[in-house]
């Protein structure tokens, strides 16, 4: 039994990446949102595109702290995703690859198996970590032996070493800083310094995406940002959306007061680089944890010595946070400085960091052994959930 295409759902805590292996993935918000301006209906997944005024959006997310906790919300979003409105599928004819968090709790794993076999009537199911798909993508492209996968997402940043295609679990490291912490911290400092935006997660997340960059020399950039004249090349204004003429805000140069364009703006100065800096120095906001480069070294140093050379040569970054300009260069620079001189260091970013794992799923479906990774409906009915627990290395 083998099908011509497979359905891949990289079920992230903030966005789900979904589509058939024969097409391009869609990125769908994995949540339900309620708008102040629209009281008749909630917006499920990508329905948010129909919302005219996205100010004060209220989020209902299936995930808490990176784990699937709110099943009613998830079921509602999945029903949307699997419907004609989004990306329709018949699971009795199409195998499914779905991602789960690292160290996913056993009762959530059981629930996943049950809901896909019983509710969605899957024929073949592969439950897998997104980092496994990312590693597969990297290894099939580079033909390397060992890989360090860095997944910097919404809830966490995970560092996962792989030796010959297998997770080395003792080396997995988690930093409790992801996109949510960055957005919330930006909201907090803007609200204190300029304008109360505590209710504007959606908009401030866009401000973060449009304005922030990773500094290559943090203290030097602080000195530049201190300057009051034109030698301050960092300071910009962010024009906020008004949902009449401007639907998404944008960054622009600071204009003189007499040129005031009567737009509502946020002044973005040291905020532009001190926010992504938290990924490199969580202790800047009092989170007593290593930053990404230090954690990469901590992870590699816990792996067998004979694999360290290959690990340092194959560090791959993906996830939304890796899209900040300067992210890869900073990781490379710091890892290079921390590693022993006689090792080579190579750091790359997935081509499309948001869908990098999804693309790995597409490649894995073409693996000649693909069906041996899956559990079929017949196997599930005969042997129950225990088989899924054994076969899937979550």
């Amino acid at each position, binding site marked *: 039994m083998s099908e011509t295409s497979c359905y891949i759902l990289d079920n992230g805590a903030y966005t789900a990446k979904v589509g058939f292996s024969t097409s391009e993935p869609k990125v769908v918000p994995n949540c339900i949102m309620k708008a102040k301006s629209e009281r008749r209906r909630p917006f499920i997944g990508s329905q948010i595109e129909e919302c005219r005024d996205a100010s004060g959006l209220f989020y209902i997310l299936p995930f808490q702290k990176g784990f699937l906790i709110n099943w009613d919300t998830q079921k*509602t979003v999945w029903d949307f995703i699997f419907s004609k409105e989004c990306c329709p599928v018949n699971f009795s004819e199409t195998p499914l690859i779905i991602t789960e968090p690292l160290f996913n709790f056993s009762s959530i794993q059981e629930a996943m198996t049950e809901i896909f076999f019983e509710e969605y009537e899957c024929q073949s199911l592969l439950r897998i970590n997104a980092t496994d798909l990312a590693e597969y993508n990297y290894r099939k492209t580079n033909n390397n032996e060992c890989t360090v996968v860095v997944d910097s997402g919404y809830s966490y940043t995970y560092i996962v070493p792989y030796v010959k295609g297998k997770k080395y679990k003792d080396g997995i*490291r988690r930093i409790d800083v992801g996109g949510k912490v960055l957005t919330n911290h930006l909201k907090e400092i803007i609200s204190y310094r300029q304008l109360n935006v505590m209710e504007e997660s959606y908009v401030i997340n866009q401000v973060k995406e449009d304005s922030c960059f990773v500094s290559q020399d943090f203290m030097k950039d602080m000195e530049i940002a201190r300057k009051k004249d034109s030698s301050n090349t960092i300071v910009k204004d962010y024009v906020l959306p008004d949902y009449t003429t401007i639907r998404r805000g944008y960054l622009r140069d600071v204009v003189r007061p007499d040129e005031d364009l009567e737009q509502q703006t946020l002044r973005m100065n040291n905020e532009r680089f001190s926010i992504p800096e938290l990924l490199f120095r969580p202790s800047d906001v009092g989170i007593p944890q290593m930053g990404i480069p*230090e954690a990469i070294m901590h992870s590699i140093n816990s792996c067998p010595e004979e694999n360290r050379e290959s690990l340092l040569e194959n560090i791959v970054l993906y996830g939304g946070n890796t899209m900040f300009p300067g992210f890869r260069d900073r990781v490379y620079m710091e890892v290079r400085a921390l590693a022993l001189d006689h090792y080579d260091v190579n750091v790359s970013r997935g081509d499309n960091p948001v869908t990098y794992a999804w693309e790995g799923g597409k490649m894995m479906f073409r693996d000649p052994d693909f069906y041996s990774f899956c559990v079929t409906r017949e196997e599930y009915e005969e042997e129950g959930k225990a088989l899924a627990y054994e076969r899937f290395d979550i």
Partner: protein
Amino acid sequence: MASRESGRVKDAEKRRVLDDAARKRRARKAIEALELDNFHEDPHADLVMSKKVPKFADSNEKPTRKKKAKSAEYYKMRFRKTFAQLVEEDASFRPEPPNYLSAQVPPSKFPDRHFCAVCGFPSNYTCIPCGARYCCVRCLGTHLDTRCLKWTA
């Protein structure tokens, strides 16, 4: 008159100093706030919403599904465990590392850096009553007027 009044209040506050426990509590609350999904109430909370889940058109042209789909509400009841319960359960189910708890990175070996609680630039001074950092007299003034002991920790 008003300014003298507030000046007196400020003097009274200055004599108060937050103890270590209160400072730690404040720091922990700040970190917890970074985890929140929303800082406001559900804007539709006052609406009497129909409990019905929205219906999406089935993916198949022909109704091939043999059984009736279960509701979102059913799964909420069926898999009802909080994050804290799951962590506790994991500790007995997977007690030996590696597991969720053991994977957390340890503290950094680099020394902490300090930033002004008001403007975000590097700071050299510590507010005596509350322990917050500030960089200059102007920022200290803003801090005393807006936060410092005015926050209940």
